[in-house]
């Protein structure tokens, strides 16, 4: 092998070959044809992509920076409620509500991050703090009359109004999510080779060593939280505009935290493709189990539980970890 320092521009993070880029480009372009060919699949694909984006949000904080959150429904809810309240009460377009919701979620996230990380809270303690804050918001919004209380908020349908982020058709949501998903994947993939991405991972691997190497661990954990919260809130806004109805139980409830975090955990936490892979498997599975066991509500949650046990026991690095191990063995066999 030639001097590896000379043969390529950068070795920080992961690189892709020209061929891989081409294949990815073709897949991305091909996915644009789905609404024309198989419109019955659109709803499932929308849900897959929505949870892949929110899973990516969780992945930045918990997978990359190693701060395990058990309460990402908090940001989902803050996102959904911020844009919906702005629209329903003040008539502000959700397109403007979207960045507002992301900022609001980031602000809430930064507050929690500062409170917890200042004292070095980590592991199960941080996970529980997140759960507690999600529940605090859940219960508060339940009794917040202005926001509809437990009854929730109905977002009035204005017909197909692109300026108001409303479409009677599902296809626009599909295209929007496709582009946002591609952007989120690209962003996180690029981040792996940036100073910030490397610092996140260094903090996850060993915080003392990271501090000793000049990393302001509090500051970078707060950055991870802000990015993570904003990405999850983005999903919340689109969810609200897609279903046109939100209530505290469908947004802030712990079930949603589990839904968001289970995908990257199964796909592979701390990997770019993990959340998408997990979502590709889990979202259809949950739909199938839900319709197969309609009369027994909650069976799909037992199913999730079983799946989580199996993954944690046998695939601690998720499916991506499994693929990487296989790739390493094959490389060893050849070399």
């Amino acid at each position, binding site marked *: 092998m030639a001097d*590896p*320092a000379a043969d390529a*521009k*950068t*070795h*920080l*993070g992961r690189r892709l070959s020209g061929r891989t880029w081409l294949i990815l480009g073709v897949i991305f372009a091909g996915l644009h044809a789905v609404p024309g060919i198989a419109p019955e699949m659109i709803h499932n694909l929308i849900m897959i992509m929505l949870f892949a984006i929110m899973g990516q949000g969780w992945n930045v904080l918990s997978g990359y920076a190693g701060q395990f959150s058990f309460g990402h429904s908090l940001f989902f809810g803050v996102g959904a409620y911020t844009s919906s309240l702005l629209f329903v009460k003040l008539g502000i377009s959700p397109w403007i509500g979207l960045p507002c919701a992301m900022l609001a979620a980031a602000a809430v996230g930064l507050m929690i991050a500062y409170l917890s990380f200042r004292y070095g809270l980590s592991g199960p303690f941080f996970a529980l703090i997140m759960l507690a804050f999600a529940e605090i918001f859940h219960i508060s919004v339940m009794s917040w009359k202005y926001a509809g209380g437990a009854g929730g908020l109905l977002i009035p349908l204005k017909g197909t109004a692109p300026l108001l982020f409303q479409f009677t058709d599902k296809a626009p949501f599909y295209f929007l999510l496709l582009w946002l998903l591609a952007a989120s994947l690209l962003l996180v993939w690029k981040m792996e*080779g*940036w*100073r910030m991405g*490397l*610092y996140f*991972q*260094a903090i996850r*691997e*060993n915080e*003392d*060593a*990271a*501090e*000793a*190497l*000049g*990393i*302001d*661990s509090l500051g970078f954990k707060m950055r991870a939280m802000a990015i993570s919260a904003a990405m999850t809130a983005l999903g919340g806004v689109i969810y609200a505009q897609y279903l046109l109805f939100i209530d505290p139980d469908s947004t802030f409830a712990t079930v949603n935290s589990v839904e968001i975090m289970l995908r990257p955990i199964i796909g592979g936490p*701390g990997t770019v493709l993990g959340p998408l892979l997990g979502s590709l498997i889990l979202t259809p599975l949950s739909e199938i189990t839900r319709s197969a066991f309609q009369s027994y509500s909650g069976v799909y949650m037992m199913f999730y539980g079983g799946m989580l046990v199996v993954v944690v026991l046998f695939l601690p690095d998720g499916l991506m970890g499994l693929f990487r191990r296989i790739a390493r063995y094959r490389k060893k066999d050849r070399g």
Partner: protein
Amino acid sequence: MTNSGTILSLTDVTKSFRGVMAVCSVSLDVRESEILGVIGPNGAGKTTLFNLISGFLSPDKGTIFFEGHSLAGLKPNRICRLGLSRTFQIVKPFGHLSVLENVAVGAFNRAACAAEAEEKAWSVLKFIGLDHKALSPAFSLTTPDRKRLELGRALACSPRLLLLDEVMAGLNPREKENVSELVRNIRASGVAVLIIEHAMRVIMGLSDRICVLNYGQCIATGDTASVCSDPKVITAYIGEGMNPGKSPC
């Protein structure tokens, strides 16, 4: 506070853990580009001293000045950015990152952009002789290589003073000689080194001066010959009533 030629200055530094005096009123100066060895029996407070200097612990009493800056109340990352980096006795590699990325994390301290950090990381890897493993994940390294990586990471921060905590423990004599050579080269590049080591032969050959800790107190400081013949040092290492002519080194 600091005389010219002194890079690190400890005055009356004390730290106790619930009544156990781990470090007791230690005063110590490290001069520019010297190798100062810290030795002492197990539990003498060597690692605690390192934790105090690098900001992982704060002293109960006393002052620590680095190049004229007081280190009181500074977090480890600030101290590292001032130009004082350390290694850990129990190596802490970032296992899932590549060897190159491990070193680049240190290099980002001074680098303006990723390309600059990577360039610095490559040059450090060449210097410590790990460039052939640059793209392997750190968890795949052997123990001697992990020790090298630990050293390389600290070096990538471009320190003016390097604290090495038992970088040679667990290495065989040939590997120890390699690391000693590395430390000499580091000093030759103008970096002062404060090194904890148990292997007497190695540290005596390497250090310009030695500081001996026992029960948290600095019982002797000076050049290797005078420290070796100091009766207090002999007592600490071999015990009282033994042949006083026998030196530990």
